[in-house]
Every structure is written in C-alpha cells, then in structure tokens.
C-alpha cells in the first residue's frame, strides 16, 4: 500500500468517523518497499493541494522519514526545489507498506497489511 493512499483513509468503524483521532491511521511494524516510479512534477503539484498536509507529516515521521516542513510547498516552490520534489515523490508515490498494521487512534483497531494489501473488513462484532 502506497503512503499516498493513507492520506485518504480512516478507521472503518462507523462511530470512529467523527473523531479526529481516527485519521491518519498509524502504521505499526511496517515493512517498507520502494518502487521505481517515473517522477511527474505536474501530478505532484496537482495532488498536493488536496492532501491533508498535517496528516502526511505525521505519517512521514511515523515511518521514519525526515520531517516535512510545517506548510506544504506551493507549486512554485516545488518546481524550484528539485530536492523537495524528489523527496515527496519518493515518499508518496514510491514507498509501499508491504507488511504490517494500521492502527486507529480512536478505537485501537488494527488493520492488517499483507502482501501490500490492506484489509479493512471488520470482524462481525464491530460492524
């Protein structure tokens, strides 16, 4: 599962949706892999404005990446800053969680990731 995907996910438990603690989910025991993806500055510039930057900063730190700036770079910053572009590309588009768990900060439920596929189906007592 790509790091970028995490920015769109919350806990699947209905009563967690309204809690700010259910986003982002927290990676645990994560095994990472890196794909080789061709860099696309235009895509990155269009994706950034729709991301929750604070959540991304949290995820990045939790996965052991260097910490991101407080504010997202503007499209102009991004085109000027080759290093930033490369770092964000690598984190968002190339980094995959292959094995591990995603933990909800509200209810504590752990979603397993196996072979890169995250499982959000809930056991029947949580549905």
């Amino acid at each position, binding site marked *: 599962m790509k790091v970028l995907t995490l920015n769109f996910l919350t806990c699947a438990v*209905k009563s967690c949706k309204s809690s700010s603690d259910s986003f982002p989910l927290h990676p645990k025991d994560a095994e990472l892999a890196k794909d080789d993806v061709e860099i696309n500055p235009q*895509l990155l510039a269009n994706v950034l404005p729709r991301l929750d930057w604070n959540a991304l900063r949290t995820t990045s730190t939790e996965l052991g990446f260097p910490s991101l700036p407080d504010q997202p770079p503007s499209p102009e910053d991004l085109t000027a800053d080759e290093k930033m572009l490369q770092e964000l590309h690598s984190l968002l588009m190339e980094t995959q969680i292959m094995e591990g768990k995603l933990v909800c900060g509200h209810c504590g439920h752990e979603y397993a990731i196996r072979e890169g596929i995250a499982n*959000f189906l809930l056991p029947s007592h949580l549905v």
Partner: protein
Amino acid sequence: MCKIIHFKDLECKHRWARVVRPCTHGTGFSDCPSFTDPNYVRGTPRAYIARQAGSNLFDEMELSTRDTSHVPYTRVYEPSEDSFLLLDTLSSPSETSFLTSRLASPASPSPLVVEIGPGSGVVLAFVTAHAKSLLGTSSILSLGIDANRFACAATTLTTAKAISSSSSSSEPGFGFYLDTLQGDLTTPLRLNQVDVLIFNPPYVPTPSLPSLLLPGEKNISRFEQDSHLLELSYAGGKDGMETTDRLLSQLPGILSPRGCAYLLLCAQNFPDKVKAEIVERFGGDDGWRAETVGTSGRQAGWEKLQIVRIWRDYV
C-alpha cells in the same frame, strides 16, 4: 432468466457461451428455463460489437482490457456485459464531456476516482490508463475497494498492464493508480473525498446475501471458498438491491462537492424507483440528480442493464 454471454473468436470464428449470472442461486444450463424458451434471443458476441464500432477508443479498450490472463476466474468476477456497458458509457462523448467539464479546469486539484468492487480490474484499469481522454486530465488518482482479496490483487495487475500498454502509445494520458484495498464498500474512506465513484454491484435478486468474510477460513475447501466469492460478486439479496442500498446511503458523505457516481442497475432492481428515491432522499432542491446515461437493451425477457449517473448540480 440466466444471463449468458456469447463469445466469438475473431480468428477461428469458434462460438461459445457462458452463464455469467444465474437467475437464481445455483441455476445454469441444465435447469434454467431460458434455454428451452423459443423466444430466447442470442446476444451479439462482444468482441464483434467492439470491432464494428470502429472508434479509436474502442480499439484501445480492446487492447487495454484484453490482458487479464492473470485473473483467476474461478474466484474473481469475469468481465461481462455489465462491465462492458460501464466501459461504453464512461467512454461515450456525453460522459467524457460531462466529466471533463467538472474535473479538468486547469487549476483544479487531482480528481480521485474510486471503484467499488473492481473485480478483475478492467474498468478501473481502463479509466486509469485513459484518464486524459475520459476525464480531461491525466493528473488523477485511482483507488479500488473490493471485499474479495483476490480481486484486489487482480486489479493491481490489470491496471499495471493497462498502464504499460498505454504508456507506449504515442500520446500517453494515464493517471496514477494508488491501490485496491480489501474492504466493505466505502467504509475505509475519509469523508467527501471522491470525485468519481464507479460501482457495478452484486445486483441479482437472491434470497439472502453471503457474508463478506469467508466462513471459518481454515475448514472450508477451495471449491467452497471460490463459490462463496463468486456468489459475493452477483448475489444482491432482496430486489438485488441490498448492497446497492447500503452504498447509496453512504454516497452523500463520500462524494466531494464536484463528485459524481456511476451505478449499474438491472431491470429487476426497479431502476425508476431507485432514481426517484435518490433525488427525494438526497434532496432534489439541493441539486441532487440521478439519470440514466447508458443502457444495454435486449428483446423481451432479457435482463436490461443501465448505468445511472448520480451527481449534484452546483451553481
């Protein structure tokens, strides 16, 4: 009536048919009345339709959806007439212009396209590989969610293959594929993020719905597992609407303000009633609309399929 689909090999002209959706659970060639009924009309072989249409998009579609050799069709829904109706509708001029005008203004952030129940992945692969011609921009993100784990793996591979065949074309316009998650409908998603939602649901009326979790995974045979997963792909419960109804109730919370959904319905789902209820429940005064934008009609007695577009007219 059971739905069967006819195939014709374009080279050797051999013809064959498969039951793609039994009319009730467990029926097939040997016991469904469709096959003894004289009014039964032969479907046109799909490959034939596509070649006749002769448009570039169709040729590309044939190319990019052909390679599903990795998909295990004993446990993942095989692309059928319903899947192709979705592809036809999404690539029709009226839908590409609707989507382009809503999503592709120069300064707008990347649209998120989500398919629920991608199965083999043909639809999501097609949309991702042809993002630029279908949605007006290649800066899209695409994501699948399927309850069937094998469908998740299949979709990722189908999409990767479609993208690699599109990237070698003269004008690549493919989007960025995120992942396919194992999950129940839209439950893993943050609220109001989805710009295009696509769902070809399990829509056949059945006495009950199979559970989303495989029963006691250890003690059941591979055959039982596979039957369960295939049942999950078509069994729709009462009026074939139980899963679709749950999706519909999630929709207003899932779509972004510019978002829209493409939903496949069959005649037994009472599509006119479904559309009227959507507008009534979501609020026609708030701009909610539900209209048929694609159909696959057949002679009397045949299951008729349609694609309903659900969206909000914002002014």
